[in-house]
């Protein structure tokens, strides 16, 4: 029966009962309170109100006790939080929301944060928290642990490190801070320890597959772009292989505020993701065909003459001349500058004069054909030219290089060769990918390619952002490069937009924390190669890919491909080979010499692809100590586990990446009760050096033999030794750098861009500082304008850090020419065709890699167990219903997960968000089991111009190159 409140009262009135007592008299326990109309007023509000007020006061605690923090994981968000605490217990966190607006007409950065950071207080006290030092007493992975004291644990670690140093030298050590701690002050503890001891470590971005090597090819560096408020000021934003609504949560508001301000958002992804939902255009590209689409756009831009000739001539290598006989760039070493009949000798001479003492480097000096003089003309600004500006017109020279044409040039030996421009070759290559031809492969209709070309070329400010998924394909490096090649054609740098991966600020002086003023060098290993070798990942590659797959993706037979990979690997490994071959041969250093492992915050058994990694690693590891604040699938197999402090318990500082212009400081709440026996990494590392020194000194005193305190290291120590009697003095800078707080203070003193700031001023503001104007790398950081890279290049004609000094479209490394990749191009995915679905594993909304995947609060907002998204039509064909357990398999293995019917999933793919620890799955077997990560020969190449192993030129571990089938379990 439906009865309104009014009717109910009326009914009571009619019966003549209870009217004076109100409608509730019949239910009252004690004295009835008369309530006339609770919509208007209520007599008894304070009981309820005071209860909730009391609860709030409890969670809030006292302002003076609050800490400040950010979440130093690999999300790169870097958001300032106020940590609430009561009675020494962290109750919750609330954004500080106090970042200073830079301009009243541009939205501010408040209140940065996300669904994961907002519950760190919860996981801080979760039952998987490591509370005490633990020693393995069963077999590795057997789950039998003994609680030991800190001294016992540190002694065992120090002993193992010391013994390894004595027996194998520093190259036997692997000391590494992983992606769980990407922070400047805190992460420096383990790095400093590794540097001091000469240990090996490897590149994080490479092994997680989040590198941008293809961008380095073009721009000379991978991490470029803008602060996120820039997206508010653009006309068009392209989000390529990216889902900022999910993976850039703190910054996503700038997209939609930008939309209200008149900017278009265009998303290019295979699945209709959470950013697509409000986009102006979504481009459903087929998984792995992004490079083909980029080449189609390049073709459209060239054919429709949408490129900007004047810009291209100044800022790209497109007018550079290429020899048609061997496809090599025409270099100064090819001709005789004295005798060459084609050369503009005048310009050549002026360059020599203006070179301020610098001379031509014949191998790195290049030419164009000057239409003003009709002569072969040396180009300024290249690595080998004495004149470093990119200006084409200056006192003494006036170059208008031809973009199109063919000429004859006389070589040193008098032979004549034909040359053409890079532009001609790019144009020719792009034609192969014309929209009409590639439509069936990319799934993108030619009208969309036409539209994209216009949207990119015509408006005033256009920004192309590229996500991490692109690099996770086998030929993703080429796709990255093709996409990154687009904005240079249409004149986009600095204020006109351009290309965005992840901006990085210049932070000078932070090296004091992890380094020793150049006295000691790190042993850097390539991320993707070292993991491949350590984990014997070749085995899965051989198993998953057949000859046809490899031919399709590389143009080589399986046999040829594997032979070449082996050759590259053979160039490196131990210290001797490293010395001889570094930048002389293809391949990357990987140090298979390591045997004693000390690893911080790096769940590598979760992360690595394939089924072989863990077993191979453990076989290699004579000793394996692991430091983290929670148990994970890597800690499960360690010999010693140390309990680290978590993010609200430490002092820390973080600046990069440059999504915003603030550096955040973590400061533990006052009077915080210790959580177990957790210690900060700085304290842990200080204890380790103290113990190593103690052990070494003891041995030295016993024997009188210097070899026990002087470990030879001719390649990575300036003194030729690692001096163990000075460890503590050196590590702690004479006692000044022992704790996490010391590290923060040193960073504040040392880093120019932080000035003027102290712990007190930062705390007052709410746990952050604003970087000063020196933080801009390639543009000024204006006080009132968003940042974007390369303004200095555009306006001051500064050269880029590339071989050509310009945006680079031509790589004449032999291997690249051989692979047909001298100019931007695209190649097919390597994934096997014998299974119907690509396995896509994008970054998740609910975790940062594996961090926070175990949170019960967050799991309740998902499905509680790993789930796989499947297109409804596919599910129906396979007889799978939502919620069913399904088996996912190929010839590498199988794993089980819950099916989620997902209309936005393409029909040729299934999606499982990445980051699930193996122990979430039946049999401890995760989605990585069906995956293999083959090495790409172009990513292994080295020793060409700016493509030399380092932070900008490593490769990626791939994740999107497997196919699977599914069935109901």
């Amino acid at each position, binding site marked *: 029966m439906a009865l309104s409140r009014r009717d109910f009262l009326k009914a009571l009135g009619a019966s003549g009962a209870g009217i004076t007592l109100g409608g509730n008299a019949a239910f009252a326990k004690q004295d009835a309170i008369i309530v006339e109309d609770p*919509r208007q007023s209520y007599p008894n509000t304070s009981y309820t109100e005071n209860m909730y007020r009391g609860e709030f006061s409890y969670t809030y605690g006292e302002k003076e006790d609050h800490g400040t923090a950010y979440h130093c994981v690999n999300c790169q968000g870097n958001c300032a939080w106020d940590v609430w605490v009561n009675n020494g217990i962290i109750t919750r966190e609330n954004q500080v929301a106090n970042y200073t607006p830079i301009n009243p007409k541009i939205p501010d950065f408040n209140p940065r944060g996300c669904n994961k950071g907002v519950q760190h207080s919860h996981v801080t006290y979760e039952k998987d928290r490591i509370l005490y030092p633990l020693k393995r007493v069963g077999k590795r992975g057997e789950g039998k642990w003994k609680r030991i004291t800190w001294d016992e644990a540190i002694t065992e670690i120090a002993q193992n490190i010391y013994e390894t140093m004595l027996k194998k030298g520093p190259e036997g050590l692997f000391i590494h801070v992983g992606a769980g701690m990407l922070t400047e002050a805190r992460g420096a503890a383990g790095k400093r320890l590794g540097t001091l001891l000469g240990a090996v470590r490897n590149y994080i971005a490479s092994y997680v597959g989040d590198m941008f090597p293809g961008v380095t090819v073009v721009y000379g560096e991978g991490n470029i772009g803008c602060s996120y408020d820039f997206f508010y000021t653009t006309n068009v934003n392209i989000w390529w292989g990216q889902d900022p609504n999910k993976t850039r949560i703190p910054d996503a508001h700038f997209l939609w505020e930008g939309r209200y301000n008149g900017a278009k958002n265009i998303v290019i992804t295979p699945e209709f993701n959470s950013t697509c939902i409000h986009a102006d255009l979504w481009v459903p590209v087929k998984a792995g065909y992004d490079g083909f689409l980029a080449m189609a756009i390049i073709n459209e831009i060239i054919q429709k003459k949408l490129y900007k000739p004047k810009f291209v001539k100044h800022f790209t290598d497109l007018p550079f001349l290429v020899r048609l006989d061997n496809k090599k760039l025409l270099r100064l070493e090819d001709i005789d500058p004295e005798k060459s009949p084609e050369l503009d000798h005048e310009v050549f001479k002026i360059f020599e004069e203006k070179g301020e003492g610098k001379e031509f480097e014949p191998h790195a000096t290049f030419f164009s054909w000057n239409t003003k003089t009709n002569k072969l003309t040396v180009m300024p600004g290249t690595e080998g030219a004495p004149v470093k500006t990119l200006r084409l017109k200056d006192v003494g020279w006036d170059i208008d290089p031809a973009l199109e044409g063919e000429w004859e040039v006389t070589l040193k030996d008098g032979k004549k060769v034909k040359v053409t421009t890079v532009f001609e070759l790019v144009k020719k290559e792009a034609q192969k990918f014309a929209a009409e031809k590639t439509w069936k492969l990319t799934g993108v209709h030619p009208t969309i390619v036409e539209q994209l070309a216009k949207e990119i070329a015509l408006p005033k400010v256009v920004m192309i952002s590229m996500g991490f998924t692109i690099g996770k394909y086998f030929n993703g490096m080429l796709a990255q490069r093709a996409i990154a090649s687009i904005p240079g054609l249409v004149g986009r740098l600095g204020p006109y937009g351009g290309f965005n991966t992840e901006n990085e600020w210049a932070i000078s002086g932070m090296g004091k924390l992890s380094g020793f003023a150049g006295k000691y060098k790190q042993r850097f290993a390539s991320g993707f190669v070292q993991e491949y070798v350590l984990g014997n990942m070749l085995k899965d590659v051989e198993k998953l890919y057949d000859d046809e797959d490899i031919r399709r993706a590389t143009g080589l037979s399986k046999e040829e491909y594997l032979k070449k990979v082996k050759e590259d690997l053979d160039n490196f490994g131990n210290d001797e080979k490293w010395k001889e071959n570094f930048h002389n041969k293809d391949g990357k250093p990987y140090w298979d010499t390591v045997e004693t492992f000390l690893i911080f915050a790096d769940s590598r058994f979760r992360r690595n692809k394939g089924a072989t990694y863990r077993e191979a690693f453990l076989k290699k590891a004579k000793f394996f100590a692991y430091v983290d604040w929670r148990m994970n699938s890597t800690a499960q197999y360690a010999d010693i586990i140390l309990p680290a402090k978590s993010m609200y318990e430490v002092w820390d500082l973080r600046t990069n990446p440059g999504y915003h212009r603030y550096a955040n400081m973590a400061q533990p709440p006052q009077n915080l009760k210790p959580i177990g026996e957790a210690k900060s990494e700085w304290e842990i590392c200080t204890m380790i050096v103290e113990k190593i020194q103690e052990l070494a000194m003891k041995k030295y005193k016993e024997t009188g033999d210097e070899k026990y305190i002087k470990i030879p290291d001719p390649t990575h120590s300036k003194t030729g030794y690692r001096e163990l009697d000075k460890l503590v003095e050196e590590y702690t800078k004479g006692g000044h750098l022992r704790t996490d707080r010391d590290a923060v203070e040193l960073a504040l003193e040392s880093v120019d861009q932080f000035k003027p700031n102290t712990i007190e001023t930062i705390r007052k503001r709410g746990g952050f500082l604003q970087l000063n104007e020196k933080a801009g790398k390639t543009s000024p950081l204006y006080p009132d304008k968003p940042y974007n890279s390369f303004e200095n290049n555009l306006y001051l004609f500064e050269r880029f850090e590339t071989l050509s000094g310009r945006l680079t479209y031509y790589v004449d490394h032999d291997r690249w020419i051989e692979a047909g990749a001298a100019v931007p191009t695209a190649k097919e995915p390597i994934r096997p065709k014998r299974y119907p679905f690509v396995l896509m594993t994008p970054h998740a909304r609910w975790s940062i890699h594996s961090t926070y995947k175990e949170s019960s609060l967050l799991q309740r907002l998902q499905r509680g167990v790993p789930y796989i998204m499947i297109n409804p039509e596919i599910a129906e064909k396979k007889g799978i219903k939502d919620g069913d357990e399904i088996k996912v398999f190929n010839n590498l293995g199988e794993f089980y997960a819950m099916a989620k019917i997902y209309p936005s999933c393409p029909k040729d793919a299934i999606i499982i968000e990445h980051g699930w620890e193996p122990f979430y799955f039946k049999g401890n077997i995760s989605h990585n089991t069906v995956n293999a990560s083959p090495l790409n020969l172009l990513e292994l190449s080295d020793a060409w111009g700016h493509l030399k192993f380092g932070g900008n030129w490593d490769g990626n571990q791939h994740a999107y190159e497997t196919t699977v089938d599914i069935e109901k379990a």
Partner: protein
Amino acid sequence: MAKRQLAMVMDLNKCIGCQTCTVACKTQWTNRNGREYMYWNNVETHPGAGYPRNWMEAGGGFDDQGNLKDGIIPDMVMDYGVPWDYNHDEIFNSSADEFVLSPNTDPVWGPNWDEDVGIGDWPNSYFFYIPRICNHCSNPGCLAACPREAIFKREQDGIVLVDLERCQGYRYCIAGCPYKKIYFNPKISKSEKCIFCFPRIEKGLPPACAHQCVGRIRFVGFLDDEESQVYKLVHKYKVALPLRPDFGTQPNVYYVPPVLAPPKFDENGKPIENEQRLPMEYLEKLFGPEVHQAIKTLEEEMAKRERGEESELMDILIAYNHADMFRLDHNYYEKIAAEQGLKGSEYFKIVDVRYIQGANTKKVEGVFGKVYFETQPALKKEEENKEHH
């Protein structure tokens, strides 16, 4: 009617479905004491079953005659979802080969079970997000349904609360609320619900869901404050609409409806001009017939901005300064506290001065005749009081 009414406006074009609000609310109020399964704030994917499952079909609210309609109490397992826990501790004493981190009950439904699912088929599927809190209705279904008169609207700001002293846990309110935003707490046998974070507001902090919303979609203020964004969005521009106005409860939470969606594709993959990916019928079902005008206004104002013209509406929705999204009128609450004899108590001690302006904030004239708010009025008063003593 309460004397004044606090309101919230949520802009669905800016909502990114990140659930930071949900978790902020959870750690503020519902991670304890029998509230674990409750989501005073949830974000649901639409079209979809929502949370609790199929709440739109679960009755309650009023018919055209103003009569309360029958409703049901959702099922804990199938509609709300059991808040499962994990065997986290077992990782320390289990063999890695055998240990499986797993929920202590088989998950079959949860508050975000159909996250991002929506409807349609690739490449023409669609979905969007709707965050939901208690609507703090002017004519609350829960209040009408309570046989004990244990639910009331605060006189000073219209926040709807359950009198926890008086509530006996009969649960008529749950059936009566058409939004199913009032919950039974099995631990204390009483109903509980979103309280619009009044203890935060009284101390100068916006509600957790709004303050911590990183999409910056939520505006909070009094509806009678003509300078507040909520007033302007609801009354001046009429672009903020209540969810399911047909339920008859007169919500005080309003939504800027979604107007942004990419074009659909024909069978060749060519974008189709002039066909909406988001069907208007669905939006009309959610937001009533006013949605047509609201979308028209939004589109017109967006077009202005694309032409480089000024638009106050766009300025408001962009929200340049996060702090400006909230007008909590602390001076007004101080007055109430004085009337209730609570002035100077811990409960009204201001913890943040950034959001406390409002209709009762004194203004001072600046040098160019521009009127400014007197900053930090409450603090100043406190200091004055101290000086008196």
